[in-house]
């Protein structure tokens, strides 16, 4: 697919499709566009975007019945140019026949069919330059090219985005109409004098001398006087063709000489009316194509489409997130008094040793002989279980590192050592920071899920001054 196939109406379709995509997921869009990009063989951005548009928007368009007018942009352009050709033809015929006695005033002719056309071309040129510089003045509401613009860009809501393109649509087809008008007039200027007698004279309400008229003709014919002297008017003819109301009707020979104005007028129309229109038509057509492509690939969101088409979708996400777990409801004891006997204090995974007992309010004064280690090896676990059996411990205190997560390893141990009996989990804080709520929550949930249940105590580390003596520590930093 080539970018030359781009039509102004594609802008509207692009805008519509981008609007439709606004609520779709980015990944989904990327997946779709990367796939289209892989299928599209075009290299130019405009062609690739057009390729994308055809794939995404065409189906939606095809699905809708009718909607569009049978009159295409091209047909409407031809129709308008044809209309203006007829208008130009009729205007010329009317102009020629409006003059009595078959005498046509050269100055009026020149003013209407050359100067006015040239002025309109200059106006168009100024607009073209303005558009090329980035300014897009609003076209006149009476401009018949609106018919074409409505064919090309039926959605006027996007005027602001497409303003320079719309302006160029006006300019492009405006030149077509101008060419039609001048072409029709030229045609009439050939046909009508061939079937009817016309001659030319000049007169002016201003005090225009023959020499001034001669200078005027000299300036006007400058472009072709060298290579087409037949289309110039000599001084004698200028003098002879001056209209003098009081004079008698000129003789046939003079009338014949007065007809030599015809090539001058014809060339004037050709050079000053038709040629600028043709040039402007060519320029506006070129500029239109470039601006159309620029507006197409510069439309907000088009750049993102092109990038999605180029860049393959990179995915690194998993299929779905895991489900959140229910909250805990284990019991947390605010106060706990350690009984004097029947207690076995088990330090899990090196949480504390004998010297650490007095550092915690809940264990202060505990006989170090009541402390045993577990969780460091399976042998140590076995030894702790044997001791609990031998001493027939009524209460098991498990001191655990509160900053570590509760593990199944510990659960297995508690199940075996407690045998459904009572146990209490003493949570040892890290440093003096206390135990974070979420970690506390973990331990409460863990305690709650144990077969016999367990109570949870958050241990309080005593300030340094309140501790009787500093012992060694292998677990608490």
């Amino acid at each position, binding site marked *: 697919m080539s970018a030359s196939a781009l039509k102004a109406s594609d802008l509207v379709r692009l805008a519509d499709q981008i609007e439709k995509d*606004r609520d779709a997921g980015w990944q989904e869009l990327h997946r779709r566009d*990367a796939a289209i990009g892989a299928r599209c063989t075009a290299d130019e951005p405009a062609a690739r975007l057009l390729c994308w548009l055809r794939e995404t928007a065409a189906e939606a368009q095809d699905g809708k019945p009718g909607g569009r007018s049978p009159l295409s942009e091209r047909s409407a352009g031809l129709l308008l140019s044809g209309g203006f050709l007829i208008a130009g033809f009729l205007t010329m015929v009317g102009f020629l026949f409006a003059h009595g006695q078959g005498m046509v005033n050269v100055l009026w002719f020149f003013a209407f069919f050359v100067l006015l056309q040239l002025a309109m071309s200059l106006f168009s040129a100024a607009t073209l330059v303005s558009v090329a510089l980035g300014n897009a003045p609003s076209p006149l509401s009476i401009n018949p090219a609106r018919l074409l613009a409505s064919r090309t860009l039926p959605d006027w809501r996007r005027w602001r985005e497409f303003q*320079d393109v719309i302006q160029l649509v006006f300019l492009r087809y405006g030149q077509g109409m101008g060419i039609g008008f001048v072409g029709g007039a030229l045609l009439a200027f050939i046909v009508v004098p061939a079937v009817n007698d016309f001659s030319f004279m000049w007169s002016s309400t201003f005090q225009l001398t023959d020499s001034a008229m001669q200078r005027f003709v000299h300036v006007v014919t400058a472009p072709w006087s060298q290579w087409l002297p037949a289309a110039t008017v000599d001084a004698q003819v200028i003098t002879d063709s001056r209209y003098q109301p009081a004079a008698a009707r000129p003789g046939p020979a003079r009338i014949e000489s007065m007809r030599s104005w015809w090539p001058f007028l014809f060339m004037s129309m050709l050079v000053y009316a038709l040629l600028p229109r043709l040039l402007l038509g060519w320029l506006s057509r070129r500029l239109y194509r470039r601006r159309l492509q620029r507006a197409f690939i510069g439309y*907000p969101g088009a750049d993102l489409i092109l990038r999605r088409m180029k860049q393959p*979708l990179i995915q690194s996400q998993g299929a779905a997130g895991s489900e959140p777990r229910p909250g805990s409801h284990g019991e947390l004891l605010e106060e706990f008094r350690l009984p004097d006997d029947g207690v076995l204090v088990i330090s899990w995974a090196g949480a504390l040793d004998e010297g650490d007992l007095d550092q915690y309010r809940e264990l202060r004064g505990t006989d170090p002989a009541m402390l045993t280690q577990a969780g460091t090896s399976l042998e140590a676990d076995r030894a702790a279980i044997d001791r609990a059996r031998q001493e027939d411990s009524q209460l098991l205190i498990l001191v655990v590192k509160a900053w570590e*997560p509760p593990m199944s390893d510990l659960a*297995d141990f508690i199940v075996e050592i407690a045998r459904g009996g009572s146990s209490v989990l003493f949570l040892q804080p890290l440093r003096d920071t206390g135990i974070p709520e*979420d970690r506390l929550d973990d331990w409460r949930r863990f305690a709650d899920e144990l077969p016999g249940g367990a109570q949870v105590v958050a241990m309080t580390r005593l300030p340094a001054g309140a501790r009787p003596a500093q012992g060694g520590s292998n677990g608490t930093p």
Partner: protein
Amino acid sequence: MELPSFAVVGRPNKGKSSIVATLARDDSVYIDRRSGSTTHTQSFPMKIGEETLYVLYDTPGMQRARSLLAWLQQNSTDASNRPATVRRFVQEHGDDPHYASECEMLRPILDGAGIIYVVDGSLPYGADYEPEMEILRWTGNPSLALINPIQGEAFVDDWRNGLSQYFRTVRVFDAHHAEFRKQLDLLELFGHLDEGWREPLERAVTALLLERDEQHHAAAGMIADLVMTGLTHSESQAIVEGIPQDPVKNLLLARYKSRLVKEEERCRRRVEEVFHYTQLQRAEQSLPLDEADLFNVENWYLWGLSRGSLLAVAAASGAVVGGGAGMMVDAATGGLLGGLGTVISGAGGALLSGVGAWRYSDDIAEVKVKGIPTGGSRLIVGPCPNLNFPFVVLGRGLQHHRMVARRTHAHREVLELDSALLDHVTESDRKKLGKLFAYIRKGKNLTRHRAELSGMIYAYCKQADEPPAY
């Protein structure tokens, strides 16, 4: 060639899922500060199109390392059959709920996955970690250890010493705050675990770098479009003669504000999607378009430019627009005025624009009434004439982008967006932006000016990946 795969393993609640979420750029990974939130191994394939370059596995934490190691030691005769012994363990205990977590964790490793062992550097090292490290060593798979300093680096050195006894490579990686470049460095490091994995991992890094650039581009385009909308949007309604205008005006004003707020919300959602965020919660004020915000001028200056900067910008942009008219006068006179037209009209434009900046500093939207040829009139609300408004929109857009781009997918905190903005934009850039806004307001060469604006925003967006500035 065997597909590179990496199992992120370790004790529960050490940030395995955070590391996976960050590297997989997946904010749907369930991360809980409570332990054991991952109960099944989940795979995160990194795909470019249909091609998979590597797979990350988020595994449940090991729960019974000591008894598992004891089993392995009992069933292994010498070091040569250790990997086979681990495999036999999984075969024999695959359906045993007692070792469900361990089997889940070991399966991808037995399938050839590299081991990424994760610990928390903010908590003390303990000998009770050693059985699980020993088990991993028994598998014989390439491995590295990551110290994730979840709440600080207090014990990082202890961990480094302990881990280096079991792993050849030990790195600190903060899953919650790792910059994009560090994430890529880590992926490159994964590639060094096995010679055959290097090439796909390098390709993955290259693809991610390209994607990152595309993300900034896309975000810049989206923010530019939002600013354009802020500069040009208006709401209009035709009203027949005799109908009071005030209710219609209020309705249009409400519609105008609502549209702009929605557009900003849409832009933010899109930018988040581009950076693979789908569940981001934001804490922010909406665009300051309410009456209360409107009269709180300081609020506008917080979001956009200060009054002083605003006047400088207004003067610069006004001078350009005015000077443009003067240049046309100079051109028309063939330079006979010696550029006087440009100077006078430029100065006039600067003055008028400065006055406009002051005059419109509190206005939300201009209200215009235009006659309709068929009778009645058309009431138009907007665009916002306030010169600071596009800066406000831009500043908010850039701030949002920066926070999203610098965030990792392990973050679960709410995105806080209420802070000072536009500090990173230089004075000359502000003036340049002011001129662009003036052109866009006037509807001049929209396509080109949008591209210029988008280019400038892209440059700011790129700075989000540079640690010191912006």
